């Protein structure tokens, strides 16, 4: 277990409990929660955990700010979509698309890195912003290939859709009326476990990565690149390496997402809003610790889905007060999240995880 987690446990009792709870909920989501939305939310969380964690590799571990992370995510997703459209429905298409997306992401990250990681870090932030916006435009321009603004809808192997039936879970009763199992395993559930397993694997891989000697060097570079260079680490190479790795992982996350969703479009995979969401997840959860990405992703997805309901009822209760109802309008949920974000940047720069760990 310890080895599996690369010796880097969540740390702190509360964090451990939270992470364990998240893991269990995700692992048994199809059987614990009712309804399609819950399953969809769970799958989304799996993908976003990987995406946010891969962004944290850059932001938290290497101190590089990139606004092009969703671009790589998109590459992975479009890879699967295009291969499924052109090669026809099938697992080969999924595999080929995934590989192609990851490869394209690696190449693009390498080019951007070679070009801009040599200059100051701020430059990298702005240049990635510019490149990402150019790619988004390109995707909408090349609508014959990419489906433009409207995106692409495609079919995945039948074994992964709700129509397929993979048998039922053996049911057994534990005392009295309590019966576990018995559910039908549809292709959708199989699909979910594909996403879950993929995400878990990638996450463990990243955990390993940041606790490797390589990961330590990244932190050193973040702290003082000049010094890192002078003790014999080639800073540019490390920076480029991590940006390529993080791009590839983002692309893989994109592929998982595409397999789950059976739709890709610029809004779901390339948008600046998604980029901001990832940023929020990483920062609120805690930069520089992958567990932060886990907690951040879960919180943000839950907030997006449920914060609004809470706010709606609060707004109703304050209906007679001036301004407050507007501020609490469910449509203004982003306002509160932004506030939370800013607060977390200063009051717990190490995010929720850092905060909870500190109280150990």
């Amino acid at each position, binding site marked *: 277990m310890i080895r599996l987690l690369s010796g880097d446990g969540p740390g702190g009792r509360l964090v451990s409990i939270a992470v364990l709870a998240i893991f269990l909920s995700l692992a048994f989501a199809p059987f614990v929660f009712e309804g399609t939305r819950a399953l969809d939310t769970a799958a989304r969380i799996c993908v976003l955990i990987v995406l946010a964690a891969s962004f944290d590799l850059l932001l938290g571990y290497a101190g590089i700010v990139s606004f092009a992370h969703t671009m790589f995510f998109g590459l992975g997703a479009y890879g699967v979509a295009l291969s499924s459209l052109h090669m026809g429905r099938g697992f080969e298409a999924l595999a080929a698309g995934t590989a192609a997306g990851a490869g394209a992401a690696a190449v693009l990250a390498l080019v951007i890195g070679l070009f801009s990681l040599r200059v100051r870090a701020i430059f990298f932030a702005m240049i990635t912003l510019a490149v990402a916006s150019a790619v988004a435009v390109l995707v909408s321009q090349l609508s014959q290939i990419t489906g433009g603004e409207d995106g692409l809808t495609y079919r995945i192997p039948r074994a992964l859709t709700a129509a397929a039936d993979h048998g039922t879970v053996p049911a057994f009763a534990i005392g009295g009326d309590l019966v576990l199992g018995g559910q039908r395993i549809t292709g959708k559930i199989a699909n979910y476990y594909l996403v879950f397993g993929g995400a878990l694997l990638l996450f463990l891989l990243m955990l390993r990565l940041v606790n490797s000697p390589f990961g330590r060097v990244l932190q050193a570079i973040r702290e*003082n690149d000049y010094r890192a*260079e002078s003790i*014999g680490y080639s800073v540019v190479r490390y920076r480029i390496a991590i940006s390529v790795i993080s791009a590839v992982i983002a692309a893989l996350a994109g592929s998982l997402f595409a397999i789950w969703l059976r739709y890709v479009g610029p809004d779901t995979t390339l948008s600046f809003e998604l980029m901001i969401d990832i940023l929020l997840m990483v920062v609120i959860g805690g930069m520089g610790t992958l567990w932060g990405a886990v907690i951040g992703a879960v919180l943000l997805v839950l907030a997006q889905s449920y914060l609004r309901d809470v706010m709606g009822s609060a707004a109703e209760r304050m209906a007679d007060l001036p301004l407050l109802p507007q501020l609490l309008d469910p449509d203004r949920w982003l306002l509160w999240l932004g506030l939370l974000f800013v607060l977390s940047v200063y009051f717990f720069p190490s995010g929720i995880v850092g905060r909870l760990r500190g109280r150990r």
Partner: protein
Amino acid sequence: MLETRDLSVRFGGHLAVDAVSCRFRPGELTAIVGPNGAGKTTCFNLISGQVAPTSGRVLLEGADITRLSPAARTRRGIGRGFQQTNLFPGLGVAENIRLAVQASRRKGGALLRLAAADRTTARATTDILERVQMAHLSKRLAAELAHGDQRKLEVAMLMALEPNVYMFDEPTAGMSAEEAPVVLSLIDSLRRDGGKCVLLVEHKLDVIRALADRIIVLHNGRLVADGAPARVMEMDIVQDAYLGQGLANV
């Protein structure tokens, strides 16, 4: 082992290092002295690769390393400490040293091994911590150390690199009279026991007298004297331009 040939560098109109040629041998501790701004640190920068020379070459064991990056030179065995303290401020003291140990063993590229599981690196780290008498500080962040301790950590990181050529830039500046000897005896042992080539920039004459096998004097970027300590110290130029009344000659 290390040699510079007509090394020069010009910053704008200012010739900071002017055709400096000299050789450094293993087992020898060379002190480099000279007034402020004479070009000592810049010479170091040229040798370790932080600054590219306008002309001239740097040779290590006969090979030309003038075009290599600082990192590449460090990997070939040139270790360099800084005059202005230059650490990883947000990391712990032990981690600072560990990174240097890891660098010297070229383990930074390992993506999937576990850093914590690397016993030999860990052992080397504790070893160095003990040698510089900083074991009690190992968990503190480098940024939290007092100035003198930061200087010591700087030296410790250099030790951890285990280079063949050690370059110390005023390692004891700001160290108290009690602490400095610890560091100095370490430096001394490098040369005597390790047979390493040591370059030392220092303004404290007692240190130079005690340690140096040879002194090089830089003045306005030029090498103006090179020889045994006693002889060099007597020279007029050194007396007038550098030593002054000698308040520092404790």
